[in-house]
């Protein structure tokens, strides 16, 4: 699936209508490229032979026919995944496994779970397969770390069988936050009323030890809520899902005007958070050097930086260039920030005169993080969109 940053034109006179249109566009923003749609259509029509042939054709297509290496790898990984699914349905396990493993090696987010399942079926079925249990674990861990809920469940159970309390606690919380709004509300009720303080402390510790977001946070700003343990788990899940999508996010080449107002983007994302999770809310913090709308909390520049958390989305400006990115980690000692950003080109010193420190660091599963200077970020930071507790949430 390709997430397209386009399709809705800014400039509508009525903001509520603009926001509504953008929300709908984001909701349907995952669109399937035509090359993959052909394969899916053939598969859905039951023409598995043709579907496999089309998938093979795409997999074997010359690299020169794609507009970028990233797009080539994305399309081919999806084609391998689809071909593998067809093979699995036809009980051709060896070819299915082969395709799923190749897709996973290209970073495909759906393939690890299926590779793990097929390996389990083959291995547990008695066929000779070296180290299949370790491989299953590796694939399920890949899927979990990329936010795939089935893999999160598997990893949670894996750690439970080994009585690894912290890991169980961490993945358990992420699994809870992956439910629908009703499920999350029920989880919160159970967390608050069925557990005692000692048990909740274990979950707090699990988040501090194992999470990306760093666990619960108390806010230093009076008007701004903090993050409870459950909200921090939700942030972790969002970060992992965003990492999972990194390889499938592209600009629509035929729609260069990928421009939406910040306040529209904020309202749409806030609506999304509120729909998905009744415990959390999205807050907009703006640098006091700028004029801000009524939805924002205005902070002095240093305050904005001091309250920056992993999982926050930052809005930066260098001259006329504006960009959004997600904070992955902050290292105060090294004075560095790691960002999760599928559009890393903004941070290149060749294109951005405000940046001198830039590195595209390989991370995991064919993904990368962007390393920049904390000081340089301070100079260009305009606003922060941060997930915090919803103000109506009951206190622990």
């Amino acid at each position, binding site marked *: 699936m390709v997430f397209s940053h386009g399709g809705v034109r800014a400039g509508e006179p009525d903001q509520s209508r603009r926001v509504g249109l953008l929300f709908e566009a984001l909701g349907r923003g995952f669109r399937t490229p035509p090359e993959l749609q052909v394969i899916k259509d053939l598969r859905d029509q039951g023409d598995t032979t043709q579907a496999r042939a089309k998938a093979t054709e795409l997999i074997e297509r010359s690299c020169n026919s794609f507009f970028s290496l990233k797009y080539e790898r994305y399309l081919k990984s999806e084609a391998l995944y689809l071909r593998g699914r067809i093979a699995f349905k036809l009980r051709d396990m060896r070819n299915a496994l082969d395709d799923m493993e190749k897709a996973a090696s290209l970073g495909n987010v759906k393939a690890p779970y299926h590779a793990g399942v097929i390996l389990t079926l083959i291995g547990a079925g008695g066929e000779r397969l070296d180290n299949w249990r370790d491989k299953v674990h590796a694939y399920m861990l890949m899927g979990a770390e990329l936010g795939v809920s089935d893999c999160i469940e598997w990893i949670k159970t894996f750690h439970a069988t080994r009585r690894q309390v912290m890991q169980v606690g961490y993945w358990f919380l992420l699994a809870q936050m992956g439910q629908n709004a009703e499920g999350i509300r029920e989880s919160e009720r159970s967390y608050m009323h069925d557990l005692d303080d000692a048990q909740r402390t274990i979950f707090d510790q699990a988040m501090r030890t194992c999470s990306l977001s760093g666990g619960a946070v108390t806010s230093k700003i009076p008007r701004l809520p903090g993050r409870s343990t459950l909200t921090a788990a939700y942030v972790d899940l969002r970060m992992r899902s965003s990492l999972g999508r990194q390889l499938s996010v592209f*600009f629509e080449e035929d729609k260069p005007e990928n421009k939406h107002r910040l306040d529209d983007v904020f309202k749409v994302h806030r609506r999304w958070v509120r729909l998905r999770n009744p415990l959390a809310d999205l807050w907009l913090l703006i640098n006091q050097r700028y*004029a801000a709308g009524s939805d924002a909390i205005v902070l002095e520049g240093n305050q904005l930086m001091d309250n920056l958390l992993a999982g926050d989305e930052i809005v930066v400006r260098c001259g006329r260039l504006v960009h959004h990115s997600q904070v992955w980690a902050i290292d105060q000692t090294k004075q560095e920030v790691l960002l999760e950003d599928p559009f890393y080109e903004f941070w290149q010193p060749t*294109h951005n*005169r405000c940046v001198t420190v830039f590195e595209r660091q390989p991370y995991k599963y064919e993904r990368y993080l962007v390393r920049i200077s904390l000081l340089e970020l301070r100079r260009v930071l305009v*606003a922060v969109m941060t997930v915090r507790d919803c103000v109506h949430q009951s206190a622990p």
Partner: protein
Amino acid sequence: MRGHCLDSHRRFNPVGSHIVLASSEKDAVDIIFGLNLMGEQEPAEAQTPPKSKSFWDRAIMVALVTALLGTGGYFVKLFIERDTTDLVVRAEAFEQAIPLDGSAPTYDERSVYCEAVRFQLVISHNQKGTRPVRLKRVAFEAKPVDVGNNVDAKLEYRFDASALQGFGIVDLKEYAFLLDGERVSGQYLESRERRIEVDPGNIFASTKGTTAITVEPKGDSSVFQPVVVVETLSAGFYQVRLRLHYEIAGNPKEKATSWVYVFMQE
């Protein structure tokens, strides 16, 4: 007698637009004198019988008319239809590149752009001739504005964060000039991965070499509309414009866009 076509052996009648075919001398005479000097044929009932003249009188008259018309055509071409090829140059679609809170400041009753301005440079053939125009140099010019003791010059602004737009490097294929005090640099964003340094003294000179473009009287090459951005990197008040140097049939010419104010506060 009406003009008519018989086959491919036609002679274009210099008197008018009718195509006539003369198959004999008698026919030729009848044809010529059946048509008035405006090239229109008189209705048959309005036609008067031709006067009786000798063949040579008529031939001489035809030759004289032809010569006069031919000469007249030359003079028409020389004085009325002469080639006045030139370039049309203008800067338009000015846009404050970073959204402001409130209205833009003005100076001398003209808009002042704050920190960054984007506009289109329209370069087109005026189509008043057929000569191509060789555009050899496009130079960026900037000079500081001396506000002096002008107490009415209140240049203040604030950007509106909620109106900020953009995500990533999307404004490709535009020329950007960066003003830093007296220093000016130029760049062209060819792609998200590649940026080319251009010489502000001539945007056609870059790290890829020096080129020029030809503006044709018609077709796709008759209009060029590059997007230009001017950004200030340090506090100051500037006037900026672009000056074009070109040639028409070897004759050098210049044109410049109007001055535009760009300002950055302390």
